[in-house]
């Protein structure tokens, strides 16, 4: 981030300018997610080990690098296909699309960004949710899609997470959430920040009703998503190597003016620091979720 802030009071720490639940989202939305998209063509380069991978092979392996096991960010629909039983996804609230309430306009009007992303992704928002089953166990699933504006949480993403929690509560089903997000969507201003509270209100009601929730943090999950619903589910899983944190690494590095230790904010680091319950490889996700759902049968019975 540029340190050229207008009129910084002399005793104001540098991070005061950068810290926000929203900004990693935009680092992501602005630059990172473009890189994450697999370039077209038969061959591509692993962003972790730089090995040349045959595209078809990567897709067959659920976008996990055959050379170094790097777990590429998975588009939402692919995630659903990989995790749920075939044909079991019963999507809900797919027609809810973002609104440009602030008429936000930096270089491109936010309204145009939404339209462009809609036509590119063929979906109206960054969150996909509905009913589905995992090895026969019925659940409510919610998946944040990083390819839609960096999986950032605006009004609709927050609403759909809350509606998914409501579905889980009223249908007495477990709630399984997959996250990949840069955080709050700053084009929606405070409305996006308040989604952290909205989703928490819905989860509080789900918890009170004895509902069971599992969240899987995937690469990357930062900002307002980590600082709300993603961190307070009953079981927190992470995919190997996933970047997970509150502030983005660049914001932290520029604040403390030090290099960050290797592996900082990666899933393995979080496991060591006691922040996640378990790291689960993509290829084992379905069977692990099935087992965890079996252990939760008591919570969602009655």
């Amino acid at each position, binding site marked *: 981030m540029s340190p*050229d802030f207008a009129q910084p009071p002399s*005793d104001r720490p540098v991070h005061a*300018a950068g810290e*926000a639940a929203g900004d990693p989202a935009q680092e992501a939305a602005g630059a990172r997610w473009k890189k994450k998209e697999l370039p077209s063509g038969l061959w591509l380069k692993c962003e972790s080990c730089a090995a040349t991978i045959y595209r078809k092979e990567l897709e067959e392996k659920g976008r996990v690098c055959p050379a170094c096991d790097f777990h590429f960010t998975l588009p939402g629909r692919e995630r659903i296909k990989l995790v749920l039983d075939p044909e079991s996804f019963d999507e809900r609230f797919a027609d809810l699309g973002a609104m440009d309430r602030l008429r936000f306009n930096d270089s491109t009007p936010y309204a145009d960004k939404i339209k462009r992303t809609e036509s590119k992704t063929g979906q109206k928002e960054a969150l996909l949710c509905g009913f589905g089953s995992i090895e026969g166990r019925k659940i409510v699933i919610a998946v944040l899609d990083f390819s839609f504006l960096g999986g950032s949480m605006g009004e609709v993403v927050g609403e759909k997470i809350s509606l998914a929690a409501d579905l889980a509560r009223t249908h007495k089903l477990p709630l399984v959430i997959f996250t990949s997000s840069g955080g709050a969507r700053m084009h929606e201003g405070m409305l996006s920040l308040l989604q952290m509270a909205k989703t*928490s209100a819905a989860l509080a009601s789900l918890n009170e009703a004895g509902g069971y929730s599992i969240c899987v943090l995937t690469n990357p999950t930062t900002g307002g998503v980590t600082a709300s619903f993603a961190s307070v589910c009953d079981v927190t899983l992470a995919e190997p190597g996933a970047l997970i944190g509150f502030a983005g690494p660049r914001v932290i590095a520029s604040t403390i003016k030090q290099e960050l230790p290797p592996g900082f904010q990666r899933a393995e680091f979080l496991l060591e620091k006691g922040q996640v319950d378990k790291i689960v490889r993509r290829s084992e996700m379905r069977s692990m979720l099935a087992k965890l759902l079996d252990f939760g049968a008591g919570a969602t019975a009655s």
Partner: protein
Amino acid sequence: MSEAPRTDLAYLPFERRIQEVEKQLAELEQISVRTKLDISSELEALRTKLQQTIGDTYRDLSAWERVCVARHDKRPIALDYIEKVCDEFIELHGDKVFADDKAIVTGLARLDTRRFLLVAHRKGRTTKERMAYNFGCAHPEGYRKALRKMRLAEKLHLPIVCLINTPGAYPGIGAEERGQAAAIAENILQMFSLKTPIVAVVIGEGGSGGALGIGVGDRVYMMEHSYYSVISPEGCAAILWKDGAKTPDAAEALKLTAPDLAAMGLIDGIIAEPAGGAHRAPMVAMQAVKRQILTALDELEALPVETLLHQRREKYRRAGALPGRFPVVT
């Protein structure tokens, strides 16, 4: 209530005209003392002009100018409320796990006869103090301290008052290691289940998740020249405009002022500040905050606790959404 005007103010860039008139006034006052001439009518005219200038300057502040007022060095901070407005305050330290985060102060407080728990971001008055309190940027232990004391308040049937004034939660290695995101998330979640009234007031900077971490309330008010934002204007300008000089544009675009947020239905009210901002007449400003807190507590304590919790959750479930925009799951 009147208060002698402060003379130790640092002027903000847009306050140049105020500064000029105040300088003229000070010179005239000196002449009056030195020469013993009767220039009281001239003095009176200049004082009127000063009030008019202050009024004109502050009538139509831009979003960025309001951010500057919210960050003013002399703006009343939590310590002022504790020392000058509270009738009693017993600080309770520490999260009882890791440390006592000085960026958040918690304690048992009293206004008139009303007892409550105070939770507030703590900034300092001097550079030394500011550094000691980390500029009001809390670590996870600060949020965990706040939650621990809020649970105490619930048990003691004391309402909770949160004064928000932070640039944001601290982004550092230790903060991440100890679960900054999880600490904020846990507070937000648990504040929806605390069986006691919660009133939050943004008294200066409402910096993103770091503010919301003690900011879920049955009533949330903003002082007239405070701001509340998903990201700092500087951060937003750097990321979206890729140009720090566009910070004022970012501030405008983010709709982070009290009137903007009230218009969207995202806060419950605005607390008016004295002419020229809270820093010109801190006691007047703080008394207004006190009155709003007491009024809100009166209203909230009249509600059965089930109603209180239901309304708190519903308020955030709606969170500024246009009527009929979202379906309802029953």
